């Protein structure tokens, strides 16, 4: 299994991401779904950043006497992606608040049964 050395880091992150995705798909509570979405996205971000690490490198802030820097590009992408993520969360939560007002519940099953009885 020496071939896979250096991949374990990715694998842990992948498992974390999948746990997040599981929460999104399997749970019926609207807030919990959003928490899951956050975890899913945050884990994907960690995966991206893992790509950028260079052993022995340091943060890409140029300084005299340092030669090896980690790759700055994934950092930039993830900065943008985090912002997109929080924007999505804010909108999702606003929708949850409105849904709670209109339906009186934030459970998917209850909402379905209310819609069907209409």
């Amino acid at each position, binding site marked *: 299994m020496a071939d896979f050395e250096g991949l374990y880091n990715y694998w842990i992150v992948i498992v974390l991401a999948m746990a997040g995705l599981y929460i999104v798909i399997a749970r019926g509570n609207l807030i919990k779904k959003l928490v899951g979405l956050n975890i899913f996205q945050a884990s994907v971000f960690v995966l991206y950043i893992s790509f950028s690490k260079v052993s022995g490198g340091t*943060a890409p*802030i140029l300084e005299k006497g340092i030669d090896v820097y980690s790759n700055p590009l994934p950092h930039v992408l993830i*900065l943008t992606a985090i*912002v997109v993520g929080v924007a999505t969360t*804010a909108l999702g*939560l*606003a929708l949850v*608040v409105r849904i709670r*007002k209109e339906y009186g519940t934030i459970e998917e099953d209850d909402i379905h049964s209310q819609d069907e009885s209409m």
Partner: protein
Amino acid sequence: MKDYLVLRVITKLLVPFILLFGLYVQFHGDFGPGGGFQAGVIFAAGFVLYAMVFGVASAQRILPEGILRAGIAGGVLIYASVGLLGLILGENYLNYSPLSHVSKEGQHLGIFLIELGVGTTVASVMMTVFFTFATWREE
């Protein structure tokens, strides 16, 4: 929240420092970690703290809705117009080099300005979103 003297005094002391720190992050982002987005969030966090301890109503006296909405749009406009400036000065959109006679200086100035735009929009949006959530009632 009128009984919590410690909290109120600490908050009063702390908020200016948080805002100052926000400004530091805004303008120091070129040299260390940080930048417009982070600064905007920290700046907003200062007001969020104030609003939580002294009530949203008093926070909104300092930053009324109109100013925040102008900030939301203003940041985007600052960013977009810095880009347009490059276009008017004969280069491609978002090229900051012609902002100064030395290309490097122009880039630096451009980055400074657009980070300002980012910070404005982010801070205004975060505060607006928080105020909206906090003051929303079911009836």
